[in-house]
């Protein structure tokens, strides 16, 4: 490949704030601005020097059309800096980085602010289509009689609201919600409730250990709200949880006989992660400190009802293209949409049968070594603001790899609708 090199030179994320029914105080744009403002402040170049702003976001608020443009302007990048928003469901943040990487690799840009943001607690509740039709009819009526007739067409069912968040988390074609797809892959690979809960507990423990060791400090920019409060930690982290508490939770998707609970699923949260990507020229011109290099990404499609297996295929493609084996990967961030789905991916990579039937491989790739997978916890503890997670795992992977001495890393997510995405990164240094 003759493409130019693409570096990540800085990045930060907000703490992820759990959605607790009420809309949180920050909009998607607010979150991204809070994450990116310190980056631009400490950068040796002015915000106007940025060539493009690319942001992933799944459900921007109605007043945030092309939220990337809003973010760019609010950050003071100036009117001349173009911006676009990308949507690839759970991998929108990864797609933003991928698009930015491509733009730089192809020489179209030198500095791109890219990342993802999501305010899931603020997902709008809309009128249904019948209501929209009724309102249009009333407004269009030309005379009092026509208007009365139009008004009389009202039905109580018009008042049934449309929860965009629930719809967003439901596959539009197979009509399964994401939790149910996790139930399906758990069943397929025989992942038990106890295995899932054990995994979930480890996620919380790993994250709290990382916080206590101060390893999250350079990754997280605190959020200050207008009521004088400060948010410095992911609010979904449960330092006090244990197997007993996790075992008490009831399945939420297949309510009677299911195994997927709110405790072993990722949390609905708000948050943003923003990174600055730079070309080699920009790194030299501004003497930018390099966090790591983005080598490339691959995407794969799978059965929408088993969307959790997306990473299995995306990683297989990525490794094949770069002629790497699983052992070459020093560290992996596999987004924890569901504990069941992470474990199922591991099982699929281990399975000779799956390798042969689904991946067209003679030898299975083998699972990722658990100690090198999601080393500081994942979305089960941190939360999964859908548009932001892809950017968060890349950012964290780079910082974590750096702490561990560098090497190759893979960040991968399953994507609602039946896809997987995976990005290969490299951090300078010899792995210990």
């Amino acid at each position: 490949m003759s493409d130019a090199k693409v570096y990540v030179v800085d990045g930060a994320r907000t703490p992820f704030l759990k959605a607790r029914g009420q809309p949180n105080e920050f909009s998607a744009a607010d979150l991204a601005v809070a994450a990116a403002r310190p980056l631009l402040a400490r950068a040796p170049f002015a915000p106007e020097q940025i060539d493009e702003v690319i942001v992933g976001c799944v459900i921007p608020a109605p007043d945030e059309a092309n939220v990337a443009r809003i973010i760019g302007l609010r950050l003071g990048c100036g009117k001349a800096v173009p911006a676009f928003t990308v949507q690839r469901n759970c991998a929108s943040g990864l797609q933003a980085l991928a698009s930015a990487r491509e733009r730089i690799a192809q020489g179209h840009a030198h500095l791109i602010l890219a990342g993802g943001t999501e305010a899931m607690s603020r997902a709008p509740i809309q009128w249904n289509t019948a209501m929209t039709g009724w309102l249009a009819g009333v407004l269009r009526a030309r005379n009092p009689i026509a208007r009365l007739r139009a008004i009389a067409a009202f039905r109580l069912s018009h008042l049934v609201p449309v929860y965009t968040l629930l719809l967003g988390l439901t596959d539009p074609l197979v009509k399964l919600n994401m939790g149910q797809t996790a139930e399906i892959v758990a069943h397929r690979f025989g992942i038990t409730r106890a295995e899932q809960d054990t995994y979930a507990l480890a996620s919380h423990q790993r994250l709290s250990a990382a916080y206590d060791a101060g390893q999250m400090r350079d990754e997280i920019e605190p959020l200050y709200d207008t009521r004088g409060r400060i948010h410095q930690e992911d609010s979904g982290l449960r330092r006090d949880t244990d197997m007993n508490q996790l075992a008490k939770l009831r399945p939420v998707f297949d309510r009677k006989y299911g195994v997927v609970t709110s405790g072993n699923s990722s949390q609905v949260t708000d948050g943003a992660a923003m990174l600055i990507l730079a070309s080699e020229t920009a790194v030299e011109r501004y003497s930018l400190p390099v966090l790591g290099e983005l080598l490339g990404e691959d995407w794969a499609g799978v059965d929408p009802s088993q969307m959790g297996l997306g990473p299995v295929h995306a990683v297989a493609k990525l490794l094949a293209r770069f002629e790497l084996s699983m052992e070459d990967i020093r560290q992996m961030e596999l987004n924890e949409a569901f504990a069941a789905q992470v474990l199922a991916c591991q099982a699929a990579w281990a399975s000779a049968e799956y390798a042969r039937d689904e991946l067209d491989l003679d030898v299975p790739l083998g699972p990722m070594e658990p100690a090198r997978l999601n080393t500081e916890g994942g979305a089960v503890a941190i939360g999964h603001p859908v548009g932001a997670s892809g950017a968060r795992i890349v950012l964290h992977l780079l910082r974590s790899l750096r702490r561990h001495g560098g090497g190759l890393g893979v960040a991968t997510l399953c994507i609602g609708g039946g896809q997987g995405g995976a990005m290969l990164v490299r951090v300078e240094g010899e792995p210990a």
Partner: protein
Amino acid sequence: MSVDIDVVNWRMEEADETIVLTLDVAGQRANALSSTVLEEFDRILGQIESRPLQGLVIRSAKVNGFIVGADVNEFQKIVDSTQAAALARAGQTVFNRLAGLPFPSVALIHGNCLGGGLELALACTYRIAREDEATRLGLPEVRLGIHPGFAGSVRLPPLIGDLAALDLMLTGRTVSARQAFALGLVDETVPERHLLNAAHAFIARHPHRRRATWWKRAPSWPFLRQPVFRLLQRQLHKKANPDHYPAPYRVLDLWRRAASQEEEALSLGELLVGRTSRNLVSIFLLGEELKRNGRRNPHGIAHLHVIGAGTMGADIAIWAAFKGFRVSLQDQQPEALARTVKKAYGFYRKKLKKPVAIQNAMDRLMPDAGGNGLRRADLVIEAIVENADVKRGLFRTIESIVRPGALLATNTSSIPLEVLGEALKDPSRLVGLHFFNPVAQMQLVEIVRGKQTSDSALERARAFTVAIERLPLDVRSSPGFLVNRVLMPYLIEAMTLAQEGIPIEQIDQAATRFGMPMGPVLLADTVGLDICLSVAEMLSGPLGISVPDRLREAVERGDLGKKSGRGFYVFDRSGRPRHRAVRGHTDTPVIERLILRMLNEAAACLREGVVDDPDSVDVGMVFGTGFAPYLGGPMRYAEALGEVGIASSLRRLAQEYGPRFEPDEAWARSDLLTHHTVPRS
């Protein structure tokens, strides 16, 4: 087609039988109605009034506004009330000519439309305002101790109703275009691009001139006028002392008598040559002079980094972001930053109202626990704890990170700049920016010049201060600078009086009756007794001020004033002091002791060259502490009392109360006490 007439300040264009008249006063940033401008206007009207025209449009070519009012500089040349009344009469005549045109006239208003400018607009048939935030309309004459004189008091009530008209004239407040439309002051608000279209549409339609609805005119009904007058007068008494500020009472009186234009002119004439107006005008012009000082050079500052989110640091950051600067605020304690964000939000919500404007201001203000903003900052203001070693350490760090061209500033109120400069490789870029609490209300900023401070650093500091709409006053680095130093003996004397057994309410009442915005004891409680104590102790060495025991004891007890709920006063939960009723007036010795100590210290400042001239003392004390503005500042007051009289009073007090009243030698040196900037009346 342009009409051939010899004028320099007006431009005339004619198309489709409509004349567009554009005011562009030569050589000025803003349009003021000088006698030349009015005379030219009169000639233009004389030439067009007999022509068969469809209409006249009047607008301004200045970016920042329509017309800011009469030319205040001309006020100072007026020697007697007859001459002043004649000036008003001349303006009235021109505006009557405008009002009497046989075709409709339209004022196109953008930016400031104040005083005489609004009176001109009132004489037009219609008024159309540009709908943005910058458009402000008002009759602020009372703030200069006068009232409208170009028939504003006569034309306004029929247009917007009596109470609304009186409100505008009595308070001098300005209103936005939107509020003006709601009041009926303007006929329409449109964006810039539609201003001329709207004017032409009004001329073509030629609707009736707007009039207040009958119920808005009800207060002027004969049997209501007197009771309404008494009610308003009673309210006015709570706000302003008629002996100090006669103008609002005149406004009310004119209204009660349904006065004619001639009566308005005569009343204005008397006010304009009175003491209050003379002094208010002089203070206003001194303030304008400070602004001009700051506008001479560009500040080159886009990003401000403030270190220390205590009251001062936080308020400076909030204010600068409000005024459009990108600000990062650094503090070791994230909680302090969180408090600031909350405070900023409350402030912006109150001031800006529109959600987008609030969001923009909040976006400009970055809480910055990590100090990310320091690296690219153009100006760094330090507002941390008053400890020379800590500050020096901080400045060393700052210098190692900031850009070479960045300006460094300290908000210290007690540490000499030279001491802080020791930490720097380049102390020439260190300047003092001494703000006053609360920043949002106190207009003054002392620009402190250390021995090593460069001229260009001072220029930039002044320019920045003006850019955030504060007044930059040059002071020399010396203990307490000007304002705190002059204020402290006054506060200390108040505490001494209290220690002698005089009720604190009586002390404060004496001061407010004198014209201070707040009594000294309550002021000390409001500022915080701990802060007073530290300033007093800092000044006690160099100035020989003895710190009263009661102050020390109060601070030791933890009674810090308003913020702790108890100081000299006890405060209720909403922060109001509990008063006891005071009987008897024994003001004279109290106020004499309070004020003379202040004047004596001011004289010492002049002798030591803390500021250059008496005008600087005056402008500093009025805008920095609210010193009785109607007196024009301490030195103007001293001038009125006479230097000899002050010295002998001080000697008498020194015999009675001790050497702290010993007159400063400056009282014998008239060269020090002469006003420079503004000619004496």
